């Protein structure tokens, strides 16, 4: 079974891989915030290109990244379609009697470009360091412990849950179950998911007991140390600086003209 490992290519060599984990998280998070609040479609497109450039610099296999972007498209593409058909404005084209507005296409494209740029940045950030490094960097950046632990446990146990799900699914197949588009199959799938939730809950209780038996009191710690070098500061300032310049290009242009 293939697991959805986000850090499969964390051992590659690239400037993004070498970037200090804390600086990387701060830089990429800043970029994501800068990119998602853009209103101009041209700027959003430039941002998207910028995000892809960073992805290319990171040398992460494009197939690996696009594969993980599929669920995002599932959410974003319907928005593009719905916006194009529902936002009022000047008619761009009429398909089967339904008007597609220019404003709708514009808003839809803007949202799509923002979302893809943000997800590309997030995947580039998470894919270029081991997950445990991400967790430790988040602790060091004083991100609330509860939030970090929730992330950590979700990632750790998603593999266990997937394994359990596939085992139960296989057991059902061994007993002659065939997934069909009917009520019975849906009800069986519901039972399977319900069982998975019960098992997850019981596992959570056991893991909690195991943590308490190792002296856990709610405040986790780490002994890892990261060392910020000059190159990390330079890289962080360069990336964020470029993004800010892009964000302000219209202001700069108006001042110049």
């Amino acid at each position, binding site marked *: 079974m293939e697991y959805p490992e986000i850090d499969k290519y964390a051992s590659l060599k690239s400037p993004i891989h070498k970037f200090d984990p804390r600086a990387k998280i701060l830089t990429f998070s800043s970029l994501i915030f800068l990119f998602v609040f853009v209103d101009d479609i041209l700027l959003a497109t430039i941002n998207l290109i910028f995000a892809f450039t960073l992805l290319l610099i990171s040398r992460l296999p494009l197939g690996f990244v696009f594969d993980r972007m599929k669920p995002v498209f599932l959410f974003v593409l319907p928005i593009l379609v719905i916006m194009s058909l529902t936002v009022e404005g000047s008619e761009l084209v009429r398909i089967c009697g339904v008007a597609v507005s220019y404003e709708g296409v514009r808003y839809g494209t803007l949202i799509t470009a923002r979302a893809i740029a943000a997800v590309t940045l997030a995947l580039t950030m998470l894919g270029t360091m*081991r997950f445990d490094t991400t967790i430790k960097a988040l602790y060091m950046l004083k991100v609330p412990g509860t939030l970090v632990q929730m992330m950590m446990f979700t990632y750790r146990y998603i593999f266990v849950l997937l394994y359990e799900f596939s085992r139960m699914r296989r057991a059902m197949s061994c007993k002659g179950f065939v997934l069909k588009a009917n009520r019975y199959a849906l009800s069986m799938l519901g039972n399977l998911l319900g069982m998975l939730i019960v098992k997850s809950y019981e596992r959570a209780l056991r893991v909690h007991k195991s943590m308490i*038996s*190792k002296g856990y009191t709610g405040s986790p710690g780490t002994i890892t140390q990261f060392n910020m070098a000059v190159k990390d500061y330079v890289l962080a300032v360069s990336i964020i600086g470029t993004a800010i310049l892009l964000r302000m290009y219209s202001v700069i242009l108006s001042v110049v003209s």
Partner: protein
Amino acid sequence: MTSAIRVRNLSYTYPDGTVALENISFEIEKGESVALVGPNGAGKSTLLLHLNGILHSSGSRGAIEVLGEAVDPKKVHEMPKKIGIVFQNPDDMLFMPMLADDVAFGPINLGVERDEVERRIKDSLEMVGLAGYETRVPHHLSGGEKKRAALATVLSMEPLILALDEPTANLDPKSRSELIEILKRLKDEGKTLLIVTHDINAIPELADRVIVLNNTVIADGTTREIFSDTEMLVAAGLEVPVIMQLFEVLQAFGYPCDVLPLSIESAVRNLTRTIENGDGHIHLHIHKHTHREIGYARSKYQHHADVNHSEKAT
């Protein structure tokens, strides 16, 4: 002398009303290695979780002392220094993204200094034969490696007592023997061990004493005393080590053996002595009672056969 563990009249009832433990009392001395056996649902794991106060609730009655101090459910976080519990399922114990983090988790919680934590990670992983696995991801380890890794996460807290819940369950023969070797080493180093197990054949190698539990303590004695009490073992749904059963069969063939060996090592010693005493030979024979005696020896622990017979009878 202060006992390692002292349990007095411990009873526990689950919230749904199921009685798990009933009036349990026993004492384990420092350096002792004790096996806790019993059928499924006998309350073995429940008892283990009471030893560091995790399961202590309104359903619990009685007193537990660990290293002379009463177990206080409000001070559960202080218990790992005294008693480390290794859970049955290693996936419940390995919850960090990297193995070294899992091993460091306990010591960090105990406030151990950074350098010391690093030393403990190294030593613990070395002790369980996983040196160099520091950066490995727990969900990529094999079943045997996970079991050893789970043990390392507890060893790193350097507890004086180790309580293990079915350490050899679901392991292949190689992983099982590796784990037994690690536990034997810990026993030889004088660590107090309490091992919950169904692995009857491993007990003679690991424990000097056996406590038989079936919601209450039904027997407590040396390994030999317990394995000599056939009636009690059968009543508790247990059996004796295979090597002991083999020598009972050999006795039916006339093999001279007053004390049945419990392990391969003692069987080798026994055979060597018998061969030496018999001028290089072992004399076995069949007489008119041999087959009856073999049948008796073989049927003593066959629980399933009994069930089938009774089903047929009904």
